[in-house]
C-alpha cells in the first residue's frame, strides 16, 4: 500500500503545485514551484547517468555471454572509456583538445555522413514508388514537384508563379496538417498530464 501510495501522493502533490504556480504565480508558489523544477533538472541529469550505466551494463552482459556481435559491444566500451578518460584528463572537460578533436573529426562527420546517405535512399524510393496511381497520389506527386522546383533559386525563371505556388502549398495545406498534428499533441499532453495528476496513470511506480 505504502509502496504505491507514497509515490502517487508525491506525484499528485508536485504536479498540482507546479500547475498552480504556472497559472497563478505569487512569491510563495514561485519559490516552491521553482525549487521543484530545479529538482527535476537534477533528476534528469541523474537519469543520464543511469542511462549510461544501463548501456554499459547491457554491453558488458553481451560480451560476457559472447552474444552475436559482441566485438561491437567491446569496441563501444573501449571508445566510451577513451572519450571519458580524455574528458577527465584536464580541467577544460569538453574543451580538452583531444575531446574537441574527437567531436570535430570523428563524431560530427560520422553523424553527418549517415544522415547524408538518406538522399540516395530517397532518390531510389522516389524513382520506384512515387507513382501516379490515383487522384490522391497525383496530388502528392504534384505537391512534391512544386515544392522541390519552387525551392530552386531559379524557380521564377521556370515559371513566374512557381515560388508563390510553393509558398501556398507550404503555407496553407501543409500548415493545416501540421497544425492538426500540433493540436493533437497538445490535447494528448493535457490528457496525459491530467491522468498523472489524478493518479490514474502511475508510470513512476510501474
Amino acid at each position: 500500500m505504502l509502496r504505491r501510495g507514497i509515490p502517487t501522493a508525491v506525484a499528485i502533490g508536485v504536479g498540482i503545485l507546479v500547475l498552480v504556480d504556472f497559472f497563478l504565480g505569487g512569491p510563495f508558489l514561485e519559490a516552491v514551484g521553482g525549487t521543484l523544477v530545479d529538482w527535476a533538472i537534477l533528476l534528469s541529469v541523474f537519469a543520464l547517468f543511469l542511462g549510461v550505466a544501463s548501456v554499459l551494463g547491457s554491453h558488458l552482459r553481451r560480451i560476457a555471454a559472447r552474444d552475436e556481435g559482441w566485438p561491437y559491444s567491446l569496441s563501444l566500451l573501449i571508445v566510451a572509456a577513451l572519450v571519458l578518460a580524455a574528458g577527465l584528463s584536464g580541467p577544460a572537460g569538453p574543451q580538452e583538445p583531444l575531446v574537441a578533436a574527437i567531436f570535430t573529426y570523428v563524431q560530427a562527420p560520422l553523424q553527418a555522413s549517415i544522415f547524408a546517405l538518406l538522399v540516395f535512399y530517397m532518390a531510389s524510393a522516389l524513382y520506384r514508388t512515387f507513382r501516379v496511381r490515383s487522384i490522391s497520389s497525383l496530388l502528392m506527386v504534384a505537391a512534391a514537384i512544386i515544392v522541390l522546383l519552387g525551392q530552386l533559386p531559379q524557380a521564377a525563371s521556370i515559371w513566374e508563379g512557381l515560388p508563390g505556388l510553393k509558398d501556398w502549398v507550404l503555407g496553407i495545406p501543409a500548415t493545416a496538417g501540421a497544425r492538426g498534428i500540433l493540436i493533437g499533441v497538445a490535447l494528448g499532453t493535457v490528457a496525459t498530464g491530467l491522468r498523472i495528476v489524478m493518479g490514474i496513470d502511475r508510470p513512476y511506480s510501474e
Partner: protein
Amino acid sequence: MPSTIWCPVCGTANREGSKFCNNCGARLEAEEGVRCPMCGHFNPPELEICSNCGARLKPLVAPSGEEETSEPIAESTSEPTGHEPELAEPIGEEKAQEEVAQSITAQQPPSEEYWIGEEEEPPPDLTPPEFAGPGEEVSPEPSPEELDFLPVEEVLPEEKEEIPAGMEEEMPAAEEVPAGVAEAVYPPPSGLLATAAAAGSEQAALFHKIVTQARPTPKALPRPTPARRTEWIIYLAVAVAIIVPLLSGGSLDTGTSISPGARSFYDALNALPAGSKVLIAHDYDPTVAAEMLPQARAILRHLGAQGAKVLSVSLTPQGPALAQQALQDTLAVEGYSYGVDYLNLGYVAGGEAGLRALARGSFFALSRDYLEGKGFAWYAISQGFSSLQNVDLIVVLAGSQDNLRLWVEQIQTPFQKRMVAGVSAQADPAARPYLRSRQIVGLLSGLVGAAEYERITGLPGRASLGVAAQSWGQAALVLLIILGNFAYFLGRKPR
C-alpha cells in the same frame, strides 16, 4: 410426418437430425470422411489437417519421378512461402508421433485409444521389427484393426508405394537418417502395434528426415542485374548532381525571390538597437549542421554588425560545440570579445524544466560557460542578463520541430518574448503554424533560408555555394520522379 432415423444398434426410431440414439446412445450420424489417427475425429475428405486436434491427416507426399529435387523440399521446410499452415503441421505431427512413441514404449494404452486397449495379449511374434528405411519392404498388409489407426490414404497400396518410390532416388534414407535418432524418437513397438508401427515407419523416417534435414546453404543468387543497375545509376546521378557543383565552387544565382518568413526575420534583427541583448539557441546536432551552421553564421554576422550582445545556449548536448564553431567563424574573427560581446553558456539540461529555470533566472545564476568553465557572473556580459526579462530577442535555431515547440511553449507564450526561428528543412512544416500565429515573427528554412539571409544582408557566405549543390540535387530528384512515372506508364498493361 417427419422422417426418422433408425438406430443401427437397437433399432429405435429417432427424429431426423439426431446425432445419437435416444435409447442406446449409439451414434446416428454416418461416420464419413477421413478419420484422424490421433483423436479419431472424422474430417471431410478435403481436409489435410484434423479440425479437432491439428494432426496431419494425409502423409507428406514428395513429388515423384524425375521432377523431384531436394531443393523444393528444403525450401518448403525452412522458408515461409505463404502457406504457413502447411509448414506448421509437421511440428504438430512430430509432437503427436512422439506422444504415440512414448505411449507405445510405456505399454500404457491411453483410455481414448481403443485400438490399443483391445490389445490384451501380445501376439506370438514379439520380435520388434528393425527400423526400416523408406526403401525397404517391411510392412505386411495391415489388419482391419489397424485401418482405424492409419490414415485412409496411407493404407492404399499404390500410395504406400508411391512415397518410397518417389523418395528413393533422392534419399537413400536408411543411411541418411542419423543413427540412433530414429530409435530414440520412435522406439520399436511390439505386438500388433509392431505391424502398424512398421507400416508407418517409412512415413516416420521420411518425415523425420524432412524436418531434421539441415537447411542447404543458400547459393549465391544471381543479382537482379537490371534493378541493381538502375539503382546504381540513380545513386550516381544524385552524387554527380551534388558533388560537381560543390567541387566547381560556383554558386548559383539565388534569384530574386525572398520568402516572407526570411524577410520578417531580417526585419526583426535589423530593428535591434546597438547593445541589444540577444539569446541565441543552437538546438541542433551534426546531422543537420550542414543546414544550420550556415544559418547561424549568417545571423551572427548580422548581429555583430548590429552591435548586439549575444548569449548562446543549447538544448542538445552537441549544440555547444557547434555553436562555438559558429561563434569562432563570425564574431571572433570580427574582433568581438568573448565574455564582453558574446558568451557561450553551453548545454541547458532538463528540457522543459531547464527552460523554466532559464526563464526564472536560476540558470544564469548557476551556469558556467562552455569555453572556460567560469561562472556566468564572472563575465562582463552578465551585467543586465539576470533573467529572461532583460533579453530583447530570442533566436531559436532548431534542427527538429520538438526543440522549437519547447521554446514556444515554455518561453514565448508564458512570457510573451519576441522570438524568431531558423529551422532545418525537415522541421519547416511544423514551424509554419507558429509563424502564421505570430508566435515567431520570422522564419528561416534550411539551407535555402540561409542563402536568402546572406543575400538580404549582403554578406555572402557558404550557404550560397551549398544551395547550388542542393538545387542540382533537387532537380535530379524531380527528374527521377518524372522518369519513374514515365517508366510506370510505359510498363502498364493496356486494359
